[in-house]
């Protein structure tokens, strides 16, 4: 059932038409491998979990008052030696390696085939109702292929990292089960050939995210965070559902190819229908990609294990919204209002999140807001129609943000060990408790600086090419209206803020004196090889990953080593078949982008301005924070006043949502139950019962129980009847 059984006739036709020889190699297996990994690890997790349950139970029976933590500790020490812990080490990353190799092979095949139209592979008929025909089908094209590469590639590295990071956790097999399942759903998301199949992946990754955020569910806050992520995401899912309904009502189908082929002729440019569809799609995208107004779940999602943050909440899942917009590029191109909304939301989110990141002390929170901010950049890109640029930044961001998260993971790992060794009750994630870590973790320090320079947008690192391309496109959209000029300004400010808060994070963490404490400092150490090697690979990708999409003029300038460096504009060409229709509509309706940035000059000039700005900010921040005396978290506590307090409390958005949404809903719920249900409805029902009872009681008053009374009344009645009959 899960093996590819047949290739849909349309797909064969498509292949025949374009004359391309793309012949996918076991694409179903790419999806199947992580699923198998999930099943194996899941069974192991249940076995391990049952054993843990038995240990806990017997401990509780033996010593009812014993501390749970002590039992945990004992169990923890035993756990890593068991088969349930050694097998996932191989199964988890193993299936990912298999999937990555298969994906690469398919990628190479597609690269060589010159494929134009997507290849659709149908496995079985999923929801046939007569008027609706949804197949369980996957679609391989340039967009899905590049997403698959990122997912399996970065995913594999993070799986390897996880081996080192999670080894000592009793929930190790469960962790890998969830992680494998996540990869499966993520692959479904990007390969689905129609909206419902994509939606399976869409909610599936949400489910895995929920499970992984709440991985340490004993901690109420972490379980809460998972729940919050799921519910907020469901708001977005609602939007996606509505979009699917409108699409079906309009096109009579939910298959990508049919919809996108029919859209330019069926839909009116800028019409209400397509605007409604795309706005609902946007609602879905803001949920998954943590954009305003649904971004609130992502910072809380940092409660999950750090590799999870790297994989799900930085590299892959959160980019699903960007993928969605790029996938539905034809629709967004037909709806200029929605496209502008995408760009605006992106810019607002980018700036908003960047301001919050300025004043966060938790290293993962900084990275979380940075992720939201970078996702905002991607939204800007796909909003202004630069889909390839959006996907480009998605990819480079996956590299350097995964690296940053994993690096932060290594730092936290080290900090945790150090604090644990001396039983110090400090927060292992608070940067104010770190400082000077570069002396203890050299490699991590180097790698993270690479990623920081990349995200700050400094040449020659990947982020320079991808982020500044986005800003360039937003800027060259400016002639379309003043809105884009404003967005461009916001993008530039955000880029500067990014450089600032990233430098701040690096200085607080790695430079200056160590604030962890005398005894603890001795226990700080570099992470094991399983953790540093993935970091190294990601660092390489963070440097060179940007070289695949460089415009000709830039290649020929200083930035391309005057044509000497191995750079190309490959990605743009690669993505062209996917975005061709959207580009054509855009060109026809809006005309070409301007070939000049708002501050004048072409690509190269803009490149100098951008990288110069970023460097200046990084240097300024470095100088500022190095010269600053940083108190520890315990000494300082939370900011008590001023603008810093507002930023530290994230503009009080959570509190605002709590006031205007959560509390009213709960209030209405209680009212519905206590008043409407109990008093109004049940009151009526019980009143009917009471009235019947009362009537009966009244009637029973005439029952004396005296036989003679009855007989007398009977006789009277008989006489009366007789009287009536006679007279």
């Amino acid at each position: 059932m899960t093996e590819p059984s047949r290739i849909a006739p349309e797909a064969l036709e498509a292949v025949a038409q374009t004359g391309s020889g793309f012949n996918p190699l076991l694409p179903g297996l790419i999806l199947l491998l992580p699923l198998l990994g999930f099943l194996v690890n899941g069974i192991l997790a249940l076995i391990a979990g049952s054993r843990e349950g038995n240990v806990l139970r017997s401990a509780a029976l033996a010593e009812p008052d014993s501390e749970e933590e002590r039992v945990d500790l004992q169990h923890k020490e035993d756990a890593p030696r068991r088969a349930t812990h050694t097998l996932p080490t191989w199964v988890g990353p193993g299936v990912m390696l298999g999937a990555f190799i298969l994906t690469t092979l398919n990628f190479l095949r597609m690269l060589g085939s010159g494929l134009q139209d997507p290849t659709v592979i149908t496995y079985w008929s999923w929801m046939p109702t007569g008027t609706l025909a949804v197949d369980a089908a996957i679609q391989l094209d340039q967009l899905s292929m590049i997403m698959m590469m990122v997912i399996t590639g970065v995913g594999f590295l993070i799986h390897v990292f996880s081996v080192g990071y999670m080894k000592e956790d009793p929930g190790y097999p469960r962790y890998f089960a969830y992680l494998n399942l996540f990869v499966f759903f993520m692959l479904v998301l990007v390969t689905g050939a129609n909206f419902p199949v994509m939606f399976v992946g869409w909610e599936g990754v949400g489910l895995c995210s929920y499970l992984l955020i709440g991985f340490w569910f004993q901690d109420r806050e972490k379980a809460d965070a998972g729940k919050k992520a799921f519910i907020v995401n469901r708001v977005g899912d609602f939007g996606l559902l509505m979009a699917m309904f409108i699409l079906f009502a309009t096109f009579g189908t939910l298959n990508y190819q049919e919809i996108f082929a029919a859209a330019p002729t069926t839909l009116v440019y800028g019409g209400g229908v397509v605007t409604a569809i795309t706005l609902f799609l946007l609602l879905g995208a803001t949920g998954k990609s943590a954009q305003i107004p649904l971004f609130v779940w992502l910072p809380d999602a940092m409660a999950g294990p750090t590799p999870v943050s790297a994989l799900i909440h930085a590299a892959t899942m959160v980019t699903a919204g960007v993928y969605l917009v790029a996938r539905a590029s034809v629709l967004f191109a037909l709806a200029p209002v929605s496209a502008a909304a995408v760009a605006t939301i992106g810019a607002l989110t980018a700036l908003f999140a960047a301001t919050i990141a300025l004043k966060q002390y938790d290293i993962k929170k900084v990275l979380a807001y940075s992720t939201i901010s970078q996702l905002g950049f991607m939204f800007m890109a796909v909003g202004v129609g630069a889909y390839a640029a959006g996907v480009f930044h998605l990819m480079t961001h996956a590299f350097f943000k995964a690296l940053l998260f994993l690096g932060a993971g290594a730092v936290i790992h080290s900090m945790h060990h150090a604090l644990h060794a001396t039983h110090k009750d400090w927060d292992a994630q608070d940067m104010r408790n770190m400082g000077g870590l570069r002396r203890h973790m050299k490699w991590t320090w180097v790698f993270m600086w690479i990623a920081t320079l990349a995200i700050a947008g400094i040449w020659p690192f990947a982020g320079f090419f991808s982020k500044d391309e986005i800003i360039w496109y937003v800027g060259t959209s400016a002639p379309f209206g003043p809105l884009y000029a404003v967005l461009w300004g916001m993008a530039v400010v955000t880029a500067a803020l990014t450089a600032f808060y990233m430098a701040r994070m690096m200085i607080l963490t790695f430079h200056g004196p160590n604030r962890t404490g005398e005894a603890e400092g001795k226990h700080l150490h570099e992470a094991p090889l399983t953790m540093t090697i993935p970091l190294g690979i990601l660092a390489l990708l963070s440097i060179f990953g940007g070289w695949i999409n460089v415009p000709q003029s830039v290649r020929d300038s200083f930035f391309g080593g005057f044509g000497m460096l191995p750079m190309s504009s490959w990605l743009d060409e690669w993505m062209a078949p996917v975005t061709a229709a959207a580009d054509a509509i855009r060109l026809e309706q809006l005309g070409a982008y301007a070939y000049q940035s708002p501050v004048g000059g072409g690509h190269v000039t803009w490149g100098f301005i951008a990288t110069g700005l970023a460097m200046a900010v990084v240097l300024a921040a470095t100088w500022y924070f190095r010269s600053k005396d940083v108190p520890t978290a315990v000494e300082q506590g939370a900011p008590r006043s001023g603008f810093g307090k507002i930023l530290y409390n994230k503009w009080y958005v959570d509190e605002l949502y709590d006031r205007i949404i959560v509390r009213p809903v709960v209030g209405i719920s209680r009212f519905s139950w206590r008043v409407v249900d109990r008093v109004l409805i049940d009151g009526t029902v019980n009143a009917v019962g009471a009235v019947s009872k009362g009537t009966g009681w009244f009637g029973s008053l005439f029952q004396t129980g005296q036989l003679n009374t009855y007989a007398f009344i009977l006789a009277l009645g008989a006489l009366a009847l007789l009287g009536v009959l006679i007279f």
Partner: protein
Amino acid sequence: MTGIFDGLVFDSWILHALIWLPLAGIPVVLMAGEEKAREVAFGWTLGLFVLSLGLLFSFDAAGPLFQLTSSTPWVEMWGVNYALGIDGISLFMILLTAFTMPVAILGSFKYIRERQRGFYALMLLLQTGIVGVFASMDLFLFYVFFELTLVPMYFIVGIWGGERRIYAAVKFFLYTALGSLLMLVGILYLYWQASIVNGFMSFHVLDLLGTPLSLTEQLWLFGAFALAFAIKVPVFPLHTWLPDAHVEAPTPGSVVLAAVLLKMGTYGFLRFVLPFFPEASAHPTVVMVMLSLGVIGIIYAALVAAVQPDAKKLVAYTSVAHMGFVILGIFALTVNGLQGGLMVMISHGISTGALFLILGMLYERRHTREIAAFGGLARVAPLLATALVLTAMASIGVPGTSGFVGEFLALLGTYERYPVIAFLGATGVIFAAFYMLPMVQRMLFNKLEGKENRTMPDLSAREITVLAPLLFLMIALGVYPAPVLDRMGPGVNAIVEWVEEGQTGALRSAAEAHRQRGELASVPGAAEAAGDQVLLAPLELAPPPVPERLPEPVRTDEAELGRSTSAFGSDQAPLVRAGTPTRIYSVTFGDQD
């Protein structure tokens, strides 16, 4: 797969068997002894489930609309037939029933401690009633079975229930009995009207189809039928019996109540209300009222569920929300909507049944249903936690589970015609997460506290056996629902064509085919009726003719005296005589065209 069953011929006998074998099992259970009763009942229902699988193979999706039909006169003078038959819709309802019963019984092994024989006997009686409801092709027979289900359920709640069981049982009984009595009036009216038009008396569904009724009549009858079914479903605001009944009912009672009994309401809408009163069912006001009630049910019940401290009550309210989706699907009157509604019915049966079973297992361990009493169970009972999480996901309709297919199709079908309603209904997916996840979290996650929770045993082998098939079906139907959708397709199309396209389609041909056959052979007194012009010209009956005088009882002469004496053995004055038009009165509501 089919190869195994090639040798077997599944004919209409299988329906008779599925209805009456549970009844035949009652003496067996009663004789089995207190200790053995549960095993016997489980074995018996399991056998029936295996037997019912034969339906799946004997039902031909490409065949006629109604299959495995049979009809035997039962009360000839009223035209009551013991008529059975199924289409794709009833097929899965029967399968769901046959599947739920052994699961519910196996799930009650530890829960039911007292009067076990009586309990399992009642469960079997319940099964007879439910399968009878879904297999009846005769309205009278349907009504008998419909009411029959009340009796065992009343006792199941009233005897084996919780503290307020009497209140809950009486509330349940009175609520539903009130509705069905009004329906009985409606049934009789429809029956008389059909008799006038047909020229013979029959309760057969296909004879009643297409009875010409004025819109006003249809609306009144719709009201009478819809009230009965709406209470059963239950539709907001007639739902308050459900939480009480669920909370007080023992686990197997809750399981059967949620999984199958509620479906009798929605099934009634599909089988009777829409086909009998097509114009009323498609009437804009009626549709808007029903859809609004459905949407209110979805949102309101979800909100109320979210603040319940009692886990079982929470799940009971989610039932109301789920059934709201079914109502949307039905009254959107689109193919997708109906298919979706039916999938929600099946999926809800599985997932809510599983939820009640799991809550029952927790109750057996802790003797409380209060959510706050639990916490951190995932650590000591990972199997139970996995089952509960998976079930919760299926319940809130995460794609890949059966819940999604149903809700998606129901809302999609609704959107095709009523976008705003679908918009409001779709917010139900948010509220679903809003009520389900906090419960899951508070019970399974957070800190493991309290001795009872810390020593709570995980699922036993029996409990795994109970839950495994349910969990399997949740995933299987979510991933590959096509076999179900394909088989339900013809039935659904028939209803849509009948209601939407001027009473055409498969239902019309089925009714016409039936009538041709019926007029020739199976109708009681058809031969006489054929020669009786009065019956065949019903319109002459209005105004009703003066009743014929009753036979003179007083005889004066000896000869007549003797004849009169012999009259004791003969039926000189039968209640209904062919050719006696006096028994048919034309009753009208309001205007009649």
